Each structure stands twice: as C-alpha cells, then as structure tokens.
C-alpha cells in the first residue's frame, strides 16, 4: 500500500460488525477512504448509515472488525488500548452533540484539563479567544448557554493543537444562529491551525462549507464530492 503522508487517514476495507450469527449487524461494509490533511470533511447520511461508526474507528474510540485504518503512518487497527489512548491524547480533538463538559470545572479549567496532559498545547486563553469566549472563562457550564458550552468544548478540543478534530453532530442541540457561530469557529480552527476537521451531521446544508463531502448509506460510501467553492458558515441556509 502506498503511503502518502499528505493524507491524514487512509482506510482500506474497514468493516464493523456488531453481534454474531443471525443477529449480526453490519455497520460498515468495507470502507476505503483517503482523507487529505488540512481539509474540512463532512460525513452525511441517514441514521445507521455508518458515518459515526467510521468516525469512532478513526477517532480511536472503537475497533474495526476487519480492514485497516491508518493515521499518517500509524496503523490504528493494530494499536493496543493504551496506544489508542495515547493517540487520542496527542492527536485528536473531539466535539460532541451534548458538549460533555465537566460540570465541576470552569470553562478555563475544562480547557486546562486537556492542556495539562498534552505535549504541545496552545495557551488556554488563546484557545478560548479563538472560540470567542475570552470574557466568560471563569464560568461553570451550568452558568452558560448551549452555544457557549459547545464553544468551550471546541476550545477544549483544539487547545492540544490536534492533528485532527472530530465533531459528531456539533450543532445538533443548538438553534440555527448559535449553530452557525459554532461552524464559524470550526472553520477558523481549520484555517488558522491547519487541523483536519471531520464533521458528522444530519444537516446537509453544512456540506457547503466543506472541502470534501462523503455520503454514507447502509454501511458503505455511496459518493464522495469535493467542493470547488466553499461557502462561509454565514451563507449556509438551514
């Protein structure tokens, strides 16, 4: 297999099966995919189409049943639990639909949670400023709106200077205005830090801001599109 270091991820024949025998569910049926470095990639598809499963496998949260998933020159499918933890710790940032902030830590501390264990983190204040939260960094999650919480989550994800940022339905719990602001932040992060950003979403309109759009159905890739002209999040119609 050729190694093209320009790609952040390369997957070959990635399969994921839950359960056994007649009850077996094929979540992924042999996915081959190359994700070039520094792109914004949007994964679209109906529920159960396998997009989140793929994200989880290349994010180091889950294991493939079969096939190979490479991150740069490392084989994720061959890694031990400990190595996967290391991988997430050093290279990956996650943003989730329900933010998953630590309620007992302030915004700043939630970011520090990551910078304390990362090798080459960015300045905490800078990360919070990047997401537009310089003012409210000493508030607890309970004192923030949903959009603010999601921005803290993004700040937390980018503060380690990740190679790749995974976002699973990042705007799913937000209204359109707040959602748009969050997409703005993701766009900025990609532009300023050069991180590969992978977004799983139901909101097809989000695709317009991506470099590359991958359509999923029935555990396989149906179509890959590249956008020659990308829209800014402000221009996206919900």
């Amino acid at each position: 297999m050729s190694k093209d270091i320009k790609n952040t991820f390369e997957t070959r024949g990635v399969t994921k099966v839950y359960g056994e025998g007649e009850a077996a569910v094929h979540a992924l049926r042999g996915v081959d995919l190359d994700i070039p470095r520094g792109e914004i990639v949007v994964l679209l598809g109906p529920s159960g189409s396998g997009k989140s499963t793929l994200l989880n496998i290349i994010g180091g949260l889950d294991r493939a049943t079969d096939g190979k998933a490479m991150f740069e020159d490392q084989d994720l499918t061959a890694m031990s639990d400990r190595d996967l933890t290391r991988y997430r710790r050093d290279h990956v940032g996650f943003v989730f639909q329900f933010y998953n902030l630590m309620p007992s830590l302030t915004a700043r501390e939630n970011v520090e949670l990551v910078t304390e264990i990362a090798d080459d983190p960015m300045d905490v204040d800078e990360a919070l400023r990047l997401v537009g939260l310089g003012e409210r960094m000493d508030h607890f999650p309970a004192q923030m709106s949903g959009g603010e919480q999601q921005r803290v989550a993004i700040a937390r994800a980018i503060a380690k200077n990740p190679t790749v940022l995974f976002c699973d339905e990042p705007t799913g719990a937000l209204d359109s205005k707040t959602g748009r602001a969050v997409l703005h932040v993701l766009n900025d992060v990609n532009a300023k830090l050069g991180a590969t950003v992978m977004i799983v979403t139901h909101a097809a309109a989000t695709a317009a801001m991506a470099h590359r759009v991958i359509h999923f159905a029935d555990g396989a890739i149906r179509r890959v599109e590249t956008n020659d002209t990308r829209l800014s999040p402000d221009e996206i119609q919900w």
Partner: protein
Amino acid sequence: MTALNHKLMRDLWRIKGQATAIALVVAVGVMLLVMMSGMLSSLIETRETYYERYRLADIFAPVTRAPLGMLDRIAEIPGVAAVEGRVQGGALVDIAGQALPVRATALSLPAHRAPKLNEIYLSDGRMLTPGRTEEVIVLQTFAEAHDLQLGDYLSATMHGSLRDFRIVGFAMAPEFLFTTAPGEFVPDDARFAVLWMNEEALAAAYDVEGAFNEALVSLERDARAEPVLAAIDRLLDRYGSLGAYSRDDHVSDRFISEEISGLQATSVAVPPIFMGVAAFLLYIVITRLVQSEREQIGLIKAFGYTDWEVAWHYFKMVLVIAVAGALLGCVLGIWAGRGMAGLYQAVYKFPFLVFRVDASSFVMGVGVSVMSASAGGLFVLRRVFRLTPAVAMRPPAPMDFSRSGALNDRLKNWLDQPSRMVLRRIFRNPGRIFGSVIGIAVGMGLSSAQLSVMSGFDETLDLTFGVIDRSDVSVSFFEPMPAETAFDLAHLPGVIEVEATRGVSAVLRNGLNSYRGGVTGLVGEARLNRAVNKDMTDIAMPETGIVLARALADILDIGPGETLMVEVLEGKRPVLEVPVASISETLLGSPAYMRMDTLNRDLGEWGRVSGAYLRVDSDRLPELYEALKETPSVAEVTRREDARAAMQKLMDTGAGAMRYVMAAIAGIITFGIVYNAARIAFGEQARDLASLRVIGFTRGETSFILLGELAIVVLLAIPLGVGIGYYLFFLIAAGFSTDLYQIPTTFQPDAYGTAALAVVLASILSGWLVKRDIDKVDLVATLKTRE
C-alpha cells in the same frame, strides 16, 4: 404481574450489587439483634429455670463449725423459707498421669433425702447410697476433661489424709455455672473439681460430725436479704461465721450476671448503628435512582398514575431490600446464636442451653429494619411527589458547581484539574460525604473498640503474670501455719526461692461502701508476688497501712490517707482500722495488700503464714510436685503457667473468633457505604469519565477522579474511626470493668490497625468492582446519551 412490578424486578436486578450491599448491612444489624436478644433471653430463662428447678440458695453462710441445732434457729428468722446445712471443704484430687494434684471442693449431700436447697443435676450414673462413705459424684465437666468413667476410682486428700473413692455419678449444679479454681478467673475444666459425698463421710473427714460448716438459706418471695444476712451473722458469730453473703455475691452467679448485663448493653447499642447506616444508604441510593429516572417518572405520571402509585412503586424497592436483608439477618442470627450458645456452654456449665429466639425478636428485627429503611426512603419519596410530568420529562439542569467553586483561588495553585473535580464534588455534596465518613467511622469505631477490649487481654496477662506475679508455683496451707512451714519448702527439690504470704478473708468497709474480699500479707520487699504502681515499679509494703487495688479503691470510694475498716472473718475476727497507704495497679481481681508482719500483729497471730510463692527449677517440677503431695500441710498447689494458659486458651477460642467477626463487621459497613457511594458517583459521572477517556485520559487517570473521592472519604473516616473507637472503648471499659476483671484503657494500636485494615480492604474491593465498570464503559454509547 403488573407492568410496574416488572419494572421493579428489573430495576432491582439492575442495582443488584448496591441492593446486596445494603441488604448485607441490614442483615448484620438484624443478625446481631436476633443473636443478642435471643442469647440474652435464652441465658436469662435458662438460668432462672435452672436455679428454680434445682433450688439454688439465696444466701450462703459459711462457718467454721456450727451445731445442727442452729439450722432451726436460722429457719425462725423472718423471711427465711428454707434452710439446709452442709459440709464443704477443700480437697486435692490425684489424677493418674498428672504430676500436680487438682484442686477440688467437696460438698455433702444428705442421706435418705434430696437436699432442700442446692440440689444437683445428675447427668449420668446414680445418686449416693446412704452409708457408703467411699462413693462420690463428680462434676461432669471435670470428669469429661479427664475421661473419667463411672466405676473409676479417685484418690483425694482431704484435711491432710489421702482416701480412695469410687465414682457413681456425674453431675452439674446451678452453683457451679461458672467454675474456676479459687483465686483464678478463667475456667479450666481439667483443673478444678467438685466432689459430692455422703454427709457422714465428709463430716468425718473435716471433723464436723453432728455439725455443719455452711448453711444454705432460701428467702420468701418478698423478703429482703440484708436483715436476714445480719440475723444469720449474729446467730453464727460464736461458731466462727465467715460472713453470710447473698447469691449476688456468689462467684458463679456474679460472672453470669455480669455477662448478661454486658450482653444487654451491647444488644441495645450496636444494632441501631447498622440500621442507621442502612437507612442512610437507602436514602442515597434511591435518591440517585429517582434522579436518573425522572423522565420515566414523568412519563408514568403523564399516563395517569397517581403520585401515590408512583411513590409506592419506589417504596416497594426500599421494602424489598430491607425485608430481604432482615430475613437473611434472622437466619444468620439463629445460626450465629447457636454458635454463640456453644461458646457460652464452654464457659458456663448449663446442663442445657438451647438458643431460642422469641418471635418478638424476629418481629423487632424485621420491624426495625423496615422502619429505618422507610425513614431513609421517605425523604426520597417527597421528590417523587414533587416531580410534575412536565418538569420530570425535561432533562435536569447540569449540576451547578459555581458555589462550591469558591475555593478556586486557593486551590488553583497546587491542584490539577482532576483533583479540582474531586474536591468540587466533595464540597458540592458535603452532606453525602459527611454521611459516608460518619458511617464508615462508626463502623470502624465499633469494631476497633471491641478489638481493643480483646487486645487488652494480652495486657492483662502480661501485667498479671509478668509483672505482678512472677512466681512459678504457689502453695497454700490448710490453716495458718508457723513461718517455718514456709521456709521448710525451700528444702524441697528444685525450689530456688520462697516468699511466704498470709491471707485472710475480710469485709472491707468505708462508710456505706463495703467489699467482701480479703487482705493479702506480703513480705516487706516482695519479689515474687508484689504490688506495683502505675509505672510498674514495686510498692514496698509500708510498716503501717494498706495498699488497695485501684478497682477496689474505686468501689470503696477511698483514697490514700483515708482510713479503711477491715472486718476480718477468721480467727479472733478483729475489726481493724487501717490507713490507706497507696493504690496499686491490677487488672485481675481486686486485692488489698498489707505488710505480713503488720497484718499478723493486728490479727494477734505472730509469725503465721497461710501460703507461699515459689520460684523453682522447671526441670525438677515433677519431683517437687511429688514432694508437695507428701507434705500434709499443703492444701493447694497452683502452677502459674496453667492459669496463664487457661486464659490464653479462652482468648484464642471464643475471643479469637470474635476478632474476625468484628473485622468483618467493619468491613461490611465500609463495603456497603463505599460501594454504594462509588456506584452513585459512577452513575452521576459516567459521561464525564467517558469524556475524559475520549480526550485521552488513561484508565488510571480517569479512575482517579472517581476513586479519589472515595479515598478522601476513607482517609477522613479512619482517623475519625480511631477517635470514635477510643471513645467507645473507654465507655465499654468503664461499663464492663468490675472488681473481678478490669479492662485496661491503654490505647491498643493493633486493634485500630486491624479495623482500619478491614476498612481499607473493603474500600479497595469496592473500588475494584467499580473500576471494572469504568473500564467496561462503552465510550461511544455513554457520550451520546443525555443525562
């Protein structure tokens, strides 16, 4: 089954670990309640039945030699129901293969009729044949210890002459419920015998023909003992009364009574602690359950179920756990009670001791656990009532830590984020943390206090046999002898050192306080048996004055410098007024010491000794025993090592087993609390923990956040547990120490160590169980669920 009941069953199954932990705490509480209250009523009833059926006397009146006619005079005293006279005396029994003769008490039984009082329970063989002076009935436990059979012969030395007897029966008696050799505190079946013989035979042996040397008296139902005691003393005074005493002062009854009152106090104090802990646990567990099921509760209410129906649903869960725990506790209680009855029968000689639990104990056990569990549950049910369907079906607001974050600035400099998370959770929920800390501390305190009492035994052994009494063998004479008799012992084989002693029985009196005991005369600079002060240094016997054991000084409420009345019960029976010179430390018994010469002078019996302490060459012990057997003046020979070994044996069996029971109790309480606290913390933080794992925290780092909280709880609980333990121990020591036995109140590090170890092990076990769950967390699924 209704749908809600299906839900109930499944919910219970889901929280089975927590439910089991709580049920176990309830079970231990109920077990102790059933076991102790059952044991208590069994002991009390059995004792009452035994005393009544075998007509145990209310009053014992020993006398040197009183004519039989005096019995009629005693019977005329108002309040007296029945009188019996008997002959009793000390004897030494020769057992084949045993170097040392065994001490015995010989008692007479009337010919041709059953005794009016103090009848015996014949467990095997037959009663004595009138006129057969060689027949003897032997205390059953002694016979068993030496494997004696009916028809065997037995030689015994009585009043200096050796005679052979044939065993015709084995018996027990209510006055020998608790048997120890005179001057000892721990029963050893092999080393103390009771022989029942025909009255004429015994009277001849002890030179009291046509007379008696002990009167037994029973009282009419409402009669008071004091005036009768005084009247008997007056009647028997000129026949050498040794002072009548009531059953309460009889050693056997005293030991069992002390045991019963101790058990009574414990059975009232201990089970509630478990119930309290169980109530607390049910409270936090059900609270968490209701919290995590608020949407379901809202939904059920939206369907049209009433508040009561929903509340009853959750209350049933409380009931199931409490009742299951209580039933298990009842079964365990019966099982433990039977075991305990076995232990009791090794110490107290009941012909029968059936562990029987009143139905009321079960009802109380189940009732108390249901009530305390309900108390814990009711607080939660209020929440169920307050939840309206609309509110319940909205997700709860995220936990607000903004107030507990106030310590921010101070914490910030030296704590990383995971540590802050741990501390903020603690500060946010201080009530729950406090409850957990108190619960564990009380459990640990309870067991460390009990363990301390047991560790104290070692100290008692050391002080008694290492510091106070350093002799190898002690010898007592039939009657006070000239001093030369003791010094002659020095010529016996193997004897290295002899220290003479003079003991008299006496009533010590200070105002209204009095104590029936004795005075021991020691040589001025005693070496083998001595009085020691607090620093364990010798107290030299003063020229004048008396040295009292601390327990005795407390009973008499007297201190150094004050004057004590000593009513001697032997010889010319003088009444002495002696100043208290100092207080000595003892843990066994309550001796009073005087300088031997001074005591003899006060008694008007110069140069008399009643016994001696010997230091001997252990290689020549068999020779020495042979020689002592041949010495007619010697009434008793005691080897110090035997007394010590008997105590040690008691410790190692009964008390030794209790050590594990107590550690298990601390462990179960800790496990119940820590495991539940951990499960709840895990339930509340599952998503946080999964997030941390996703961010790149290792399993160890993630577990720290959860287990750190528990570690802090345990670390806070242990020192508090030591404090509570020491306080409880002090209460126990104060409450249970008697003139017979004092519980040393020194700090026993090993007891606290054992209890703390049990707490730590239980915590590690709970932590490990929960960590397994953390490791199993499905990162993806957890992250996608909404709390």
